[in-house]
């Protein structure tokens, strides 16, 4: 069942738009993530699709039929909540059966569906317990089973993993994704965690400031960010955003320190250049002209994350080989050898500069924007 969002908007009071002009197409059987920082309106959008919050403007279509004003139960969807929303006075079985009973399914079918759903989430031995006797992860599974047991093919999820501890969250990510594939569900998944979106979704919608910033596959979003917000929101460690100005015909100077050769001339203006920490290189200590000073050193195991300051004081993050030793106060010589993204002063992407200095070990799998 596909879903079509057509210029959806939500305003609680006149001209106070919580969401504006949200347009997207969600394919049947797709895992669609809505990502954004707190307060960007992503939960509001999900509740508008569910029918829990009325839509102010625009049109919603589910499976080709207009659903803008349908009550929630006629939209044929289920919802999994961040807080699970289990009924504390019902057993696991009754919690899972709740929706089916409300929809007056025949008793035999309810039993079949509930048994199957509980089995799918591996809760058979807990089926007679109350939610208070379950761990956080098990409660989460009950909430999932409730969605699975329903015959609805669309499942809306509102940050379902954010109350779990880090290890369980990673495990549940895979399980969720597998379940979704197995059952052929269309999932709309709201999260503030970019890693969750990147690892699970077929398509990602990035919301910020009440508007869509970009819609695309995880690879698209990572490799071709539409603006500085998307660029800095996705990827750990975060992309460096450096002020830049045109200093020669085909050259930008970043933070008065680094030079970036351009494939084509740019009109003279202020620009912002985004470079991921992995796209910067370090000359061996003692070589080259020092242009950055180390402020903090973080060991991440496979690499070292250095927070440094360029000679003009602009902070910059870069990664280094864990075998090398860096101390706070060391001077480094930094250069650009990976992809760099040129944004105009408003943050809209202009084009991408592909990696300058080629390393055998680094691939630059990306196309020119």
């Amino acid at each position: 069942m596909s879903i079509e969002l057509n210029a959806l908007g939500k305003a609680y009071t006149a001209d106070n738009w919580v969401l504006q002009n949200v347009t997207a197409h969600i394919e049947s059987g797709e895992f669609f993530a809505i990502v954004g920082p707190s307060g960007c309106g992503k939960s509001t959008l999900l509740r508008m699709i569910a029918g829990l919050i009325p839509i102010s403007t625009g049109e919603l279509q589910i499976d080709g039929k207009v659903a803008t004003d349908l009550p929630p139960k006629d939209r044929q969807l289920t919802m999994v909540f961040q807080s699970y929303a289990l009924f504390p006075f019902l057993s696991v079985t009754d919690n899972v059966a709740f929706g089916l009973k409300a929809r007056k399914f025949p008793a035999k079918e309810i039993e079949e569906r509930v048994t199957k759903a509980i089995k799918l989430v591996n809760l058979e031995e807990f089926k007679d317990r109350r939610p208070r006797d379950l761990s956080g992860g098990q409660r989460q599974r009950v909430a999932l089973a409730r969605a699975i047991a329903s015959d609805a093919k669309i499942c809306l999820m509102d940050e379902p993993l954010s109350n779990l501890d880090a290890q369980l969250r990673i495990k549940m990510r895979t399980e969720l994704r597998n379940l979704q594939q197995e059952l052929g569900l269309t999932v709309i998944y709201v999260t503030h965690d970019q890693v969750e979106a990147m690892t699970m979704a077929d398509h990602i919608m990035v919301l910020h400031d009440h508007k869509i910033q970009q819609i695309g596959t995880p690879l698209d979003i990572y490799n071709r960010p539409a603006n500085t917000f998307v660029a800095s929101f996705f990827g750990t460690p975060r992309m460096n955003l450096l002020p830049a100005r045109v200093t020669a015909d085909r050259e930008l100077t970043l933070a008065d320190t680094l030079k970036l050769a351009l494939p084509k001339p740019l009109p003279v203006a202020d620009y912002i250049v985004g470079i991921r920490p992995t796209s910067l290189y370090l000359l061996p200590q003692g070589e080259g002209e020092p242009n950055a000073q180390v402020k903090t050193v973080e060991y991440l195991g496979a690499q070292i994350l250095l927070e440094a300051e360029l000679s003009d004081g602009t902070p910059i993050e870069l990664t280094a080989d864990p075998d090398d030793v860096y101390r706070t106060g060391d001077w480094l010589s930094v250069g650009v050898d990976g992809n760099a993204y040129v944004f105009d002063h408003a943050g809209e992407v202009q084009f991408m500069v592909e990696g300058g200095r080629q390393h055998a070990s680094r691939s630059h799998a990306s196309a020119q924007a």
Partner: protein
Amino acid sequence: MMLTKTHKTLRYLVLVIMAIIIIGPFILGFWTSLLPTADIAKGTLFSTHISFQNYVDAVQQTAIMRYLLNSFVISVLTMAAQLLFCSLGAYAFVFLSFKGRDFLFYVILATMMLPFEAEVIPNFATVRQLNLLNHYAVMVVPFLTSAFGIFMLRQSFRQIPPELKEAADVEGLNHWQFYWRVTLPYARISLFTLAAYSFLESWNQYLWPMLTTFSDKFRPVQDGLRQLQSQETFNNWGMIQASAVIVVIPTLIVLFVGQHYFKDGLNEGATK
């Protein structure tokens, strides 16, 4: 913190003294209910003529059983009505949004500031107009709902996580279904509390039934007890005391059964 021995002894001493002050009259009352009236009149409290004769007399010679039945009918009806109407009222104040909702709620709260005694005269005039005097209805109808009950249940319903309402909306539950299948079970502890409270309050009514009932057929226990004393010139104190003990028993049962439900933690696990 470890208490020193003297400290501990002192604390227990204070507790024992307070316990004696509070429980003393009850024990004395129960003890005298076992003594013949002659001994009570003489003041020989440590008599050996202990028997349940007073209880037998009370049941056989007075209308105490009728009083008990009357009070039971009145209290159960009041309790059931208050549970129903207070929960419906509270539901509206929490889950329905309508114009003037908060204002209406404050009006209801404001009625709590008026003591019942201040309303006795207009209420009496009303029930007399309605021809309800000396009937069960006169002791039930004015107490069908209570501002306190609405207030208490509203607070309790507000604790229900909004996600439960949303989950119910997605499954298509209407207000009646949500009220019956989610709200009431979720707030059952508060409902038990309100039930016990309204039962006891009704059971212990004195002023209102005294004004509105004139015959043993409808008179509840508290007024019945008073009746025992004035009926005869010679007061059979042993029997009156035995009747008082009988009257207290339902109260104790309600509190004893009730406390089983008044424990926390029954609603854990709805949301994290």
